[in-house]
């Protein structure tokens, strides 16, 4: 049996300066007045621009691409502070977390020079084009096809659950480009401007009544040769390399944190042994999870690919996020109200209504457990 490695740890105490700075920034920003559960899925482009202007986006990237050349641990602190504050970070989230690094790693010089500074300014957003109507957990079955057309490509197909495509300028999409070999071969990533002719974006309203998702249709979409991102046929490996970044961050266990914070405020006004026990039970799960996630951040900073460890964090993190609402619903019962001006009532409703998505997005619980089982040596 392979044992996960959480022995690497970074000294986060040395990051106190960046923590104080982002905390002060967030406290002074207008969004502080209205925190959200699952806030990294609430888009507010103006907030993203303010973050970018203050230097909190593209933090680890080279300065020549508008980045801050800060450490990945400094970025971790900023990201966890944004989640803990419930600030609406959805517009830039994907671009800052994974598309930017992906372009930095696989993109052409022109792609980097054009797009990265705009992401770092908080003005450019990128959607993920992975899932399709018939390809969810079975991602390798994608059918959207890119066919060579002279120097360029023609894309036909459809992508779904595409968060904030309606606000984004680009989509990074996984397309089938070849027939040869297994299902995971012949896949290629493309970086496509969403304004390209032939692309239609249709809203999908989520259970909480929000328009975050979209379906994106591609009908004879002509793109130039340089829309290709990375290697032709290398799409699967590129997608996999994003996952450790995608699965282990603070957003994988802090989506309901603002509710827990609101619960503390309430419980201090009317403390009881039951409320203390409920709070303690949640915090005793959260703190070790954060320790695991920070260890992964330190390992990622050293260039390791702790995918097994990331799967463990996501497995446990999504259960925790879902349980916060579930457990707190038992206290101050029947007060969940999405329209309430009372933050506790509103956040309880948000956390409960967003909860089903926590163990689906970024790899379902079942997929994650399959990955863990494989690393344990069971498959």
């Amino acid at each position, binding site marked *: 049996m392979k044992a996960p490695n959480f022995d690497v740890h970074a000294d986060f105490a040395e990051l106190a300066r960046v923590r104080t700075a982002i905390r002060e920034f967030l406290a002074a920003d207008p969004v502080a007045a209205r925190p959200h559960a699952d806030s990294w899925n609430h888009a507010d482009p103006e907030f993203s621009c303010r973050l970018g202007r203050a230097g909190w986006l593209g933090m680890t990237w080279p300065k020549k691409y508008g980045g801050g050349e800060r450490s990945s641990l400094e970025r971790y602190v900023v990201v966890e502070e944004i989640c803990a504050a419930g600030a609406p970070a959805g517009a830039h989230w994907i671009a800052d977390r994974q598309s930017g690094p992906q372009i930095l790693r696989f993109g052409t010089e022109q792609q980097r020079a054009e797009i990265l500074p705009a992401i770092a300014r908080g003005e450019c957003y990128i959607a993920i084009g992975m899932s399709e109507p018939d390809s969810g957990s079975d991602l390798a079955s994608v059918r959207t096809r890119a066919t060579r057309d002279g120097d360029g490509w023609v894309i036909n197909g459809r992508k779904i659950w595409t968060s904030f495509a309606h606000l984004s300028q680009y989509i990074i999409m996984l397309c089938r480009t070849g027939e040869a070999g297994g299902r995971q071969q012949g896949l290629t990533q493309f970086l496509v401007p969403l304004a390209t002719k032939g692309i239609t974006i249709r809203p999908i309203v989520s259970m909480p009544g929000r328009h975050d998702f979209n379906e994106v249709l591609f009908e004879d979409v002509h793109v130039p040769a340089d829309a290709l991102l990375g290697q032709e046929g290398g799409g699967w490996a590129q997608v996999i390399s994003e996952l450790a970044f995608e699965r282990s961050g603070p957003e994988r266990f802090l989506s309901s944190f603002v509710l827990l914070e609101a619960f503390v405020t309430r419980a201090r006004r009317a403390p009881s*042994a039951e409320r203390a026990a409920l*709070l303690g*039970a949640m915090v*005793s799960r959260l703190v070790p999870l954060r320790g*695991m996630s920070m260890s992964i951040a330190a390992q990622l900073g050293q260039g390791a690919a702790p995918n097994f460890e990331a799967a463990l964090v996501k497995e446990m993190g999504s259960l925790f996020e879902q349980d916060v609402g579930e457990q707190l619903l038992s206290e101050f019962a029947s007060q969940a109200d999405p329209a309430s001006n009372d933050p506790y009532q509103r956040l309880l409703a948000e956390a409960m209504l967003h909860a089903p998505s926590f163990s689906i997005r970024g790899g379902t619980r079942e997929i994650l457990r399959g990955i863990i089982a494989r690393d344990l040596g069971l*498959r």
Partner: protein
Amino acid sequence: MSDIALIEDTTVRTIMSGLTAEVIESAERGVWPAALWERLAEQGLTQPAAIAESDAAAEGLEIEAAVLRATATTALPLPVAETALAGWFLARHGIEAPAGPLALAAFNDGDTLTYTSGQVTGLLQRVPWGRDAIAIVAVAGDTMLLLDAQSAVKSAQMTAGLNMAGEPRDTLRFNSAKPLAVGGKADADLMLCRCAAARAVQLAAAAARALEITVEYATQRQQFGRAIGNFQAIQHQLAAVASEVASAQVAARQAYLAFATAKGEAFAAAIAKARANDAAGAVARVAQQVHGAIGYTREYQLQRFTRRIQSWRGEYGASGFWSRRLGELILAQPDRSLWSIITAGI
């Protein structure tokens, strides 16, 4: 291999070389495994902090945790953890630890120990290895005491008890007894936290071993023409508890780090014990289920870990106790957000 991993590995080897089926069986019947104890004591493993090359608290604690993990992954039926903890408390009070097995009070609500005019009177309940220890570290009021265990045992002032793993948990009565040593002012609450953190280390290690045994079994046991580990129903149960093990291990390490830096000990110990209790419980449940009937026999090894996990979950504070303590610690700081408490470590 790091020095710490080497110490853990060496301790496991030393234990395994002496932990025969016969030793395990006779220990269950209450026979003290003297030869094995001597072997561990000779190598200094019963006072692990003394192995440290520096005086730094952090190094001694890291070594102690490595030795405790080794005792838990082997289900060693000896009070190494108790002796190590007792030695640590004694050292902080400037008392030289007597050579031999030491016990610690269980810090039970039912303890009634008083210390007046140089004499100790009252009950200590469910003392780990009370019958075998030469001395017991306990607290009366806020005074730390080193008590003579054997004279209480010899004067028939002991009621023998066991935990579910068959480890001695004895109740001792003291009547105007003279302590072996008096250590001065002690913080019983901090001592309880320290013991809870140690049990958390043991729980996490026992849970990790139970998971390892179970994964191995699932890859070997064939049913319906294939290894049962091929079934998703089995895979998903084991995957779910793999994350429980990892989080208990991380929580236990965080608690030892808190003691090493003398910062936020109560906060970290509460988290570690609550987490380890719950995680190990979940692991034991799945480990037993995946093993089927063979896991429910005395002959097969899993029971040694399950019984220790189920016993240790209740010792030095069950989850309900620590969750409430943790919640109260947080609620008692009205000027601070939960997030600022978490990021600061208290």
